[in-house]
């Protein structure tokens, strides 16, 4: 990757332009001065070549799944198939206005219905709403459904939602946005939700519990049946955070575990590209008990991110019932393979079989010595960039101070995993020999470590 230091504004020269418009009957707009813009519009004046080169140069400072291995835990960075992109750009769909009469969008509606049916089959839920545009957006929509369920019963005292201490940060945040109070349930030393800690929390004020299974440590919550029974017994509902659905493909249906509401991330489990942070799609599915309320929360403007749904359906059709059932097991195979291959040099706090991801807690020998602090998880992450890999998720979950959360996915070959393992070993050796070299990593990237403190203290947020 090559450093390129321009902003589009810096290429601007008065008199250049890159637009192409019809001559038409455009004339100056007659508007009262009170409504007219006063300040000049300071947008770049550049040629089309300038624009194309500029953004091409920017793209070359970016690392994507197509660049290399991206073992970012909880993000399921699997390969994004190219046919899906072609389908999403299909001109018979991209020109449809969201408010067109139903008889003119039957094909689009069939896409949504077919995807609904497929996701229902995969998860064991009844139906989905596709309005949520992301996982956190799905959580919010799902919690609204939880509240509708209780409100319909006149059960207005249920204002609290239980969230495990290992939960994704969005869980408590979504609950707060939905007007719910958060109660934290602890994990046991083996990483699973502590059922004994849960019991006294349950009561008439509990709206439900949010869980991801497998949890953020990549562990299957074995006691989910008992948890479901306890929560249902107290009148609450179970919410399934589908961020970790990938390992269950072909093996377990969340609907069979007693969950009432779930969201899926089409941009994780169903291979749609993350686009540098979006657009995603977080459809929310419900069990029969919650079905009557499914259409009540309107959480986005039209029909949700239809273009992302097109990709998700193309993926499911490509895999078909034969291949989709291999996706989960192969993802789990890769995670356990890495986990077992490095546990002599990286601390493995929870040694049991993992699902799609697992967590190391820093190095066995971090190289710390008199006057020289040892190599940290941040150092390991940065050094990985030098070797051409994306870093795992770091410092999450919060249960371990040096957490390194690794998720390889089913689309990576044994050779890729072996290369990653080898580099991780080399980094462990480097740490033991010369931790200072790791403190200053990365060394081979377009920029080196940024000064984040100054960025936050004196924010420069626009040009």
């Amino acid at each position, binding site marked *: 990757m090559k450093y390129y230091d321009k*902003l*589009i504004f810096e290429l601007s020269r008065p008199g250049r*332009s890159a637009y192409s*418009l019809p001559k*038409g009957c*455009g004339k100056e*707009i007659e508007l*009262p001065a*009170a409504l*007219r*813009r*006063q*300040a000049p*519009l*300071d*947008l*770049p*004046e550049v040629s089309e070549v300038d624009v194309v080169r*500029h953004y091409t140069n920017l793209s070359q400072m970016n*690392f994507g799944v197509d660049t290399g291995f991206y073992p970012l835990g909880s993000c399921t960075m699997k390969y994004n198939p190219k046919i899906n*992109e072609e389908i999403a750009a299909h*001109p*018979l769909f991209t020109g*449809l*206005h*969201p408010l067109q009469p139903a008889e*003119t969008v039957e094909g689009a509606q069939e896409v949504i219905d077919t995807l609904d049916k497929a996701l229902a*089959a995969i998860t*064991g839920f009844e139906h989905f709403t596709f309005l949520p545009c*992301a996982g*956190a957006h799905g959580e919010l929509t799902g919690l609204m459904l939880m509240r509708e369920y209780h409100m319909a019963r006149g059960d207005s005292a249920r204002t609290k939602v239980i969230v495990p201490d290992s939960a994704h940060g*969005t869980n408590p*945040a979504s609950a707060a*946005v939905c007007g719910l109070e958060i109660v934290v349930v602890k994990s046991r030393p083996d990483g699973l939700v502590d059922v004994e800690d849960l019991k006294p929390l349950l009561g008439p004020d509990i709206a439900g519990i949010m869980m991801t299974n497998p949890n953020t440590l990549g*562990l299957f919550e*074995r006691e989910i049946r008992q948890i479901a029974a306890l929560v249902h017994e107290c009148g609450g509902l179970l919410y399934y955070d589908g961020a970790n659905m990938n390992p269950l493909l072909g*093996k377990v249906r969340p609907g069979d575990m007693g969950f009432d509401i779930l969201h899926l991330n089409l941009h994780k489990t169903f291979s749609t*590209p993350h*686009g*540098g942070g979006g*657009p995603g799609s977080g459809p929310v599915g419900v069990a029969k008990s919650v079905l009557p309320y499914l259409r009540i929360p309107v*959480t986005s*403007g039209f029909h949700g991110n239809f273009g992302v749904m*097109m990709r998700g359906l*193309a993926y499911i*059709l490509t895999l*078909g*019932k034969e291949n989709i059932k291999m996706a989960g097991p*192969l993802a789990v195979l*890769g995670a356990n*393979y890495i986990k077992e291959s490095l546990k002599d040099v990286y601390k493995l706090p929870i040694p049991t*079989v993992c699902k799609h991801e697992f967590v190391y807690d820093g190095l066995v020998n971090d190289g710390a010595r008199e006057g020289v602090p040892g190599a940290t998880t941040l150092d390991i992450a940065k050094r990985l960039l030098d070797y051409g890999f994306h870093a795992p998720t770091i410092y*999450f979950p919060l249960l371990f101070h040096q957490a390194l959360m690794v998720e390889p996915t089913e689309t990576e070959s*044994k050779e890729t995993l072996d290369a990653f393992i080898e580099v991780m070993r080399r980094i462990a050796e480097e740490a033991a020999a010369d931790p200072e070299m790791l403190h200053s990593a990365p060394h081979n990237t377009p*920029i*080196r470590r*940024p000064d984040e403190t*100054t*960025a936050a203290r004196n924010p*420069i947020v626009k040009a």
Partner: protein
Amino acid sequence: MGTFAYFPHTEEDIRAMLDRIGVASLDDLYSDVPDDFQYKGEYDLPSAMSEQEVRDFFEQLGRKNVQLKVLVGQGAYDHYVPAVIPYITSRSEFLTSYTPYQSEISQGTLRYIFEWQSMICRLTGMDVSNASMYDGPTAAAEALRMMLASSRKRNKVVVSAGLLPCVQKVIATYMKYTDAQLVVTKDVLAELGDDVAGVLVPEIGKLGRINDLTGYAEKIHEAGALMAVYCDPSTLAVLKSPAEWGADIAVGDGQSLGIPLNYGGPYVGFLACRTELMRKLPGRIVGQTTDADGKRCFVLTLQAREQHIRREKATSNICSNESLMALWCTVYLSLMGPEGMRKVNELSSAGAHYLHDALIATGKFKDIHEDKLFLNEFTLKPLCDVEKLQKAFLAGGFFAGLQLENGELAFCVTEKHNKEELDSLVKIVEGL
């Protein structure tokens, strides 16, 4: 195994990997899952399709859609999409990357988000923009939450009944589950009081009318509340910016900046504000800094507001944005420049006014825009059989004259529609 394109594992690989793990089979990797949860059935899904079959499947469904010339807006505008945009946004370095956590290998994403923030600030006149939101309606809901969070005691937000229906529905949903009070009214100023945290008004109402917001900011601020303006960013090339109206927050949807209609999504919301509100702004924000060698670079900043740090105390639960769609708009604005943006408005507005006058001249509509205060979108009161009219539009290949709740018919013209198309639409009306 080894026969499916996305799974690279050979039988040999699987065997070697299982051996390293110390288990006998893939099933053993699920030994921690109670047996009765293990799904033994086969998903009710079709068999795997070849690439050709997938293509055919969607082609067939696509043919069930009716391709129409779109002359309706209401939150989704059929502006022209320059060829450069999809070319750039489909570059896989942009497309297949995650949120730019590792800034050293994400400078591409971080730089274009910084450019997006800068362009949104330049359009709206605001000091700071976030990295984007899901869509305009959700951004509007977040603006209300922001205004509520900025005031300790005030628990009411007042929004204009003139906002687009798609915005109103989402706002109502978001507010329903909080203890804040939402007031929807035609006269927002009449509702001001010491319990009002903020006011949200559209610059262009759902009927296409440009609102004169002169004096609003003074009155709202005098009452101790904040002012947010919902706007169409494309029209800000010619209309007063939210900052020029004196607003504290600008919010809207970037779809009109070169994003295809896409049956409603993905689009992209924007949310920008004055410096004083910066720490209440939800979502990602990119900031400029320097690296260890003093080189200019960009990072996600002000993260102390966010859910992964603050959990339930965060400004919002949003943890992503619509990054690629923000790139879509950023490339669009770079291509259009100030002159192109002005011309898009002139062409759209000229077309809309031409169509408006021609439709009035048919005698089948009542003019409700006598002062002509609209740009590309307007409504007419029908004096004819609406159902028959809409059927005739569809038969003529047009989606036009969407009927709103108040019975009026909505039209929208962009630079994509030439005079011949508009004339043929008018002919349909004349032929009724």
